[in-house]
């Protein structure tokens, strides 16, 4: 009888500790998920400047957050296929802000308003954006100057749902 009681007691104590362990593991895994999401958010926000200032997009190293429209045209073509693993984010798009538009129209096309530089096709993507200048060097009426307009760099990152 005593052995039976003791056996039941030991099994109960064992299950109690297993449950306590599972409870703590659950808390720990929740904190891992939270810190992974925080790190990803930090990385995406800091990536905005890094991507805008990359030599592949930047108009001039001396002007931060300024992208080159010629480079946008090239990078939104097949040229960027080589860069697949290079981007630290899921998608990179550059929108022309002015004149305002209701329907986004992908470049190259007539009256287009956004360039899709990279998209790895992931769903559940959260986007972050920053304003940039879109510039190119033009020659008009014999004078050469930098022509710039306002744009918006939008990067997407997969959400950890």
């Amino acid at each position, binding site marked *: 009888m*005593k*052995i039976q009681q*003791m*056996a039941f007691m*030991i099994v109960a*104590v*064992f299950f109690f*500790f297993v449950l306590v*362990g599972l409870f*703590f*593991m659950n808390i*720990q895994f929740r904190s*891992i998920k939270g*810190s992974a999401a925080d*790190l990803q958010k*930090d*990385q995406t926000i*800091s*990536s905005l*400047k*890094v991507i805008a*200032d*990359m*030599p*592949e997009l*930047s*108009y*001039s*190293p*001396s*002007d*931060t957050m300024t992208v*080159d429209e*010629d*480079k946008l*045209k*090239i*990078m939104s073509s097949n*040229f960027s296929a*080589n*860069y697949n*693993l*290079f*981007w*630290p984010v899921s998608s990179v798009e550059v929108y022309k802000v002015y004149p305002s538009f209701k329907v986004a129209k992908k470049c190259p096309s007539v009256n287009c308003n956004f360039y899709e530089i990279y998209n790895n096709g992931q769903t559940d993507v959260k986007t972050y954006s920053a304003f940039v200048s879109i510039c190119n*060097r*033009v*020659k008009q009426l014999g004078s*050469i100057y930098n022509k710039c307009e306002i744009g918006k760099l939008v990067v997407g990152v997969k959400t950890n749902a």
Partner: protein
Amino acid sequence: MKKAQFNFVWIFALLIGGAILAFAVFGATRMGNTARFQSDTEIAKSISIITDPLQSGFGAGSFGKMTFVQETRINNICFSGKFGKNEISVSTKSGVGKPWNLAGGATSIHNKYIFSSEQNSGKEYYVFSKPFSFPYKVADLIFLTSKDYCFVGSPKGVADEIKGLGIPNIQIGNCTNANATKVCFGDRNNCDINVYGSCVSGCNSPYDFGTVKKGSLTMNYAGNLMFAAIFSDKSIYDCNVKRLMYRTARIAGELYDKSDLMNARGCNTNMGADLSEWRGLVFNSGSKNLIPLSSIAKKMEKKNEMELCNVWK
């Protein structure tokens, strides 16, 4: 009969109690290791993130310091295929059991070039960056060091840059720290590292490109890759230079296409042929080819500066 029952109860209780205790100790140890692995993995990821603002842009460079609570080992592995990557992993020192734990999960960094030893350890790490142009801006080089250095006979430009960034682990001129790695510019004795400049014409300094010698190892450099050669192991240096040359070639291809677009809208440029040739030259190059390539890069830079419609700035 009573004695036998007492013995059996005690033996049974001891066995099961021992098993539960062993299980609990095993579980606690595993959880401790998992927590440490998690923390080390987070640190590796954080290193990747905190080096983002160090990408210096147009400036001469930027500097940052990382301080850890306990002694930390940072491992840097470089892979050179195409754009390649740096894989950063971290392990922390423990007062219990083995001093160094297995490294946490590695973070792959494809768009940065981190120059360091393959394995560094310390509580304080100094991180600074310098832009690399060849002849157009290619990337920002990131240098990660934990040791002290002393630069002897450095040219004014290098000394001013180091002083300007306020990097505390690099002394210029008189070496008061006996444990510091002595880096000498030119042919001097009793040095750990010697830097030899090779630039003779059209240079800002003879050290615009040249060679860094570490014992029997020789590393050719161009521009700010001089710092990379000083602060990193040869394997990391050669691998990162190969990655940089691949990216230089890719950007040359992009600039070639850009020159076509510029010509099409009347903003004419003659850089197309140079860029096409340059792309072919740098595509499969490595650190060995840096000195002859530097002379060509300087000529291209001058030609681009002369143009009204510059392909790059």
